[in-house]
Structure formats: structure tokens, C-alpha cells
């Protein structure tokens, strides 16, 4: 179980591959569900050329670890990986990766869906977008969209 803050751009599929190779769970898991959030070059119909992602390091790590433990226990997951970017982010860069491994499919799918909602509502990250008219803090996350 790993929750990691990434200061630099990461490849989500390589991160999952590497994590899975180290995990020694081959033959045990029957299901893997993943979610990747990626930066788009527009938001609210405005072009966004860049984004700064600020966080509260100690609390972020604490919350991601806590969410992983809760999900693992609640759904009996075999493994969980969370990676979240901070710093300067460009369009098409991955922002967040969540991957859940379980014996059967519903556990991994439901846990993955729960984790991204919890993370969006609780983990202390803040986005500031660079638009044509300047920099603007994102007010609030879309509710469940």
C-alpha cells in the first residue's frame, strides 16, 4: 500500500506496472480498478494554459494514508496505490492516480470510486489555474462529476 506525492510529471500506467511488479500479489488478485485524473486545457469554457497545485504536505500524506487504510479494510483490498501531483502542471499531465487490487471485481471498482470522491473532498490540495486573464484559484470541486 503506497500513497505518494509526485513533484514531477509521472506516467500513471508505468507507475501501476512498477507497483504491481513489486507487490508480489500475482495469482492472488482477480481485479484491478484504476482512476486517473488528467489536466485538460479548458475549464468552465475558459482556456487554461497551466496549473499550480499547492498542498499541505504533512496533512496530505496523513489523509492519503488514512484513505488507503480505510478503503483496504472496508473492501478487503489486496493492495492500493495513490499518486498525486503537486507543483506546476501542464495540460495532458496526470494529476491523480488511484489503483485498487482485489480478489473480485466489485471491491476494486467500488473502492476506487469511493477513494476519488473522498480524496477530492478531503485531501488538502488547491489548484490555481493560469488563464488568459491571469491566475485564478479554483473555488470548489465539482460535486461528483
Amino acid at each position, binding site marked *: 500500500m503506497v500513497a505518494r506525492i509526485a513533484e514531477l510529471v509521472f506516467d500513471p500506467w508505468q507507475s501501476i506496472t512498477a507497483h504491481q511488479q513489486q507487490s508480489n500479489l500475482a495469482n492472488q488478485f482477480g481485479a484491478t480498478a484504476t482512476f486517473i485524473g488528467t489536466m485538460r486545457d479548458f475549464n468552465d469554457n475558459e482556456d487554461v494554459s497551466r496549473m499550480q497545485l499547492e498542498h*499541505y504536505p504533512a496533512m496530505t500524506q496523513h489523509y492519503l494514508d488514512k484513505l488507503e487504510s480505510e478503503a483496504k479494510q472496508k473492501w478487503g483490498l489486496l493492495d492500493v496505490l495513490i499518486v498525486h501531483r503537486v507543483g506546476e502542471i501542464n495540460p495532458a499531465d496526470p494529476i491523480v492516480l488511484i489503483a485498487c487490487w482485489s480478489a473480485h471485481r466489485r471491491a476494486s471498482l467500488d473502492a476506487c470510486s469511493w477513494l476519488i470522491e473522498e480524496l477530492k473532498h478531503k485531501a488538502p490540495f488547491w489548484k490555481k489555474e493560469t488563464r488568459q486573464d491571469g491566475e485564478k484559484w479554483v473555488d470548489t470541486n465539482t460535486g461528483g462529476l
Partner: protein
Amino acid sequence: MSIQVKFFASLRETLGISETRVNSVATAGDVWDIATNKTERPVNVLVAVNLEYAQFDSPINDGDEVAFFPPVTGG
């Protein structure tokens, strides 16, 4: 011992404070008042005490870390 205070994101920019320290107080609300020189609190400000979400009337002990920030927008 004193209380470590942190501000993040738009709140950090608006107040112009990133980190400060205050002496013994009763609640998280008191920390806000002293650290911001009684700036009016925006309605949506969140507070965390020792890395857990808390309330403005949560009690504060010496050595605690208290953080104030706007709604989170990660993920």
C-alpha cells in the same frame, strides 16, 4: 511551547501570511483572531488541528499545529 499556525492557497495570498506562531489560546477561533489580527473570517474557511479537520470552537493545546485553508480542490 507555542502554537504553530499555517495558511494555505488563496487564504495565504489574501492574508499575506504563510506561517506564524501564537501563544496559548483556548480555541481554533482564537488562533485565527490572533494570527490574523482579527481579520473577518471568510465563510468557507476550513480549519485543521494536528492534521485532522476540526471546528473553530475546538480546544487548542500548546504544541498543536493549526492550519486554515479554503475548500480543497485536488484530484
